[in-house]
């Protein structure tokens, strides 16, 4: 079985490559299905139809879709994400500019959520069905059940507009000089993530605590603290880590709302902007980066789980 590890890695890499290829085609087709193209959308009161037609030729939109796709693919394979149809700048630049805010936001959220969720999960798991467990479960469930935009609207109304304690938008602010900018967005993203994660950690803890090997370790006189940290945690973390990997996509959905409300110039905003302006190379580039990130995260999660509890490798 252990010998299978190498082919498995190869298999996985191949799958990832196929996944990326299929995804790019899919994204291209999806965006091509949208009504209008980048040139047409510029048709407002200031550009005449002739100017639009000129623009379309300039942007290369007059060429057939497959040709454009192949050209894009060729560029990507040489490490060039292409050129935005809207700004005329490189897509890589758009990615670089938009990824920072989202990354900071996501990482900061995780930095708050993960330790807390692990702690809560363990507390709940060790007091399964007790008063504290029920209380924490109810609170986190309640937090997770409030749609993020509702939380966001209310938090902004109360803490920024009424009380004036915290900045309401990232506009005119700068993260380095005012880290308080992060507080409200994190508060919005916090609820659901902490609920999902702590639930998994709780389930893992309960399962581990009920496992024969924990009972046995206790019988052999391992003290409680040590038991929790060294024996229970690695096992309890496995479902949590897998959940964390799955959270990526949901988190992105939340991030978009948060980015919209707090005017954070991030990845999700760039993606939706790209769709709205039919900037296909930008959408393609952003999706590609997202997909690679998703694949890497999943890979990392699998490896972490394998590191935590080697047995899971066998189960796949």
């Amino acid at each position, binding site marked *: 079985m252990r010998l299978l590890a190498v082919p498995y890695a190869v298999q996985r890499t191949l*799958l990832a490559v*196929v*996944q990326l290829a*299929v*995804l790019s085609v*899919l*994204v291209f087709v*999806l*965006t091509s*299905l*949208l*009504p209008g193209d980048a040139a047409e959308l510029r048709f407002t009161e200031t550009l005449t139809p002739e100017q639009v037609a000129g623009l379309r030729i300039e942007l290369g939109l007059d060429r057939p879709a497959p040709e454009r796709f192949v050209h894009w693919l060729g560029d990507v394979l040489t490490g060039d994400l292409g050129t935005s149809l809207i700004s005329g700048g490189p897509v890589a630049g758009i990615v670089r500019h938009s990824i920072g805010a989202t990354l900071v936001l996501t990482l900061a959220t995780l930095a708050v959520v993960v330790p807390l969720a692990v702690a809560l999960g363990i507390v709940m798991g060790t007091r399964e*069905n007790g008063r504290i467990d029920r209380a924490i*479960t*109810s609170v986190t*469930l*309640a937090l*997770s*059940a*409030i*749609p*993020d*935009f*509702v939380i966001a*609207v209310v938090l902004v*109304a109360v803490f920024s*507009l009424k009380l004036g304690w915290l900045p309401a938008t990232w506009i005119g602010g700068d993260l380095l000089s005012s880290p308080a900018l992060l507080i409200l967005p994190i508060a919005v993203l916090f609820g*659901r993530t902490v609920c*999902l994660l702590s639930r998994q950690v709780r389930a893992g803890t309960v399962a581990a605590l009920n496992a024969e090997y924990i009972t046995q370790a206790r019988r052999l006189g391992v003290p409680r603290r040590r038991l929790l940290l060294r024996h229970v945690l690695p096992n309890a973390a496995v479902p949590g880590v897998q959940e964390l990997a*799955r959270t990526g*996509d*949901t988190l*992105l*959905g939340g991030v*978009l*709302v948060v980015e*919209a409300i707090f005017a954070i110039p991030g990845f*999700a905003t760039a*993606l*939706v902007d790209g*769709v*709205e302006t039919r900037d296909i190379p930008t*959408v393609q580039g952003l*999706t590609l980066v*997202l*997909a690679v990130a*998703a*694949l890497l995260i*999943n890979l990392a999660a699998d490896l972490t789980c394998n590191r935590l509890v080697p047995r899971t490798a066998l189960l796949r």
Partner: protein
Amino acid sequence: MIARARSVRGWVAAVMVLLPLVVAVIGPFLPYDAAKGLPYSSEGLLGTDGLGRDVLGLLLVGGRTALGMAAGAVVLAYLMGGLIGLTAASTRHRWLDEGLMRPLDVLLPLPSLLVISVVAVGWSASALAITVAVAMVNVPTVARLVRAAALDAASGPVVEALRMQRESWARIQLGYVGRSVLGPVAADLGTRITLAVFLVASVNFLGLGLSPTAPDWAVSVSRNREGLLLQPWSVLAPALLLVSFTLGFNLLADRIVHRSRRLVESAS
């Protein structure tokens, strides 16, 4: 004491789910004469919204899409994902299993937001299109979940024993495998329906979904949020109904999962 606390909590959860559900289902049939006024005025029980429409009247007709789209999407996702998952799990042909599941694996990293915003932008304001898109986004996860759960059951000795007894395929699949899948599915349902409500609501909130004058709860929250301080009910009332539904549903699902676990535990 604790037992009573539990059952009280159960009732609260049930009411939380039922209230929005009832409003959504029978609201449109109520002969409520919605008053018309100026934007964000306090005419009527809950005042008016940004278009001068009666908030209560809107609540009564706005639940159908808000909950219907999410519920429809989840049902659709389970119909498709469940079928794919069950088939993949119960087939003896490896190629069929792979053929069904691998394409879904490919779809997994596709950001759901992209799919939905493309659909929302492309088929503007079509409730059906958004429902289908939300469902599609959920199909891969549901299929994997159902397959994993069914695979455990379908490959276990119980099914072999049932086959040894010559039980019919339907009885094995529905009576045993299906029931084994039910547990994980129930646990998943609470989260999934919340996610679907969120997703649909987020799409509407971001202005990609339904028409901005639709009475939909999420649209109301989104459109009226700038009037939050002028007429809070125009935002809070639909938001509360949405929250009540998702929260109640989660509490209920949590209880069901707990109870079934306790049953299994007390049985062993």
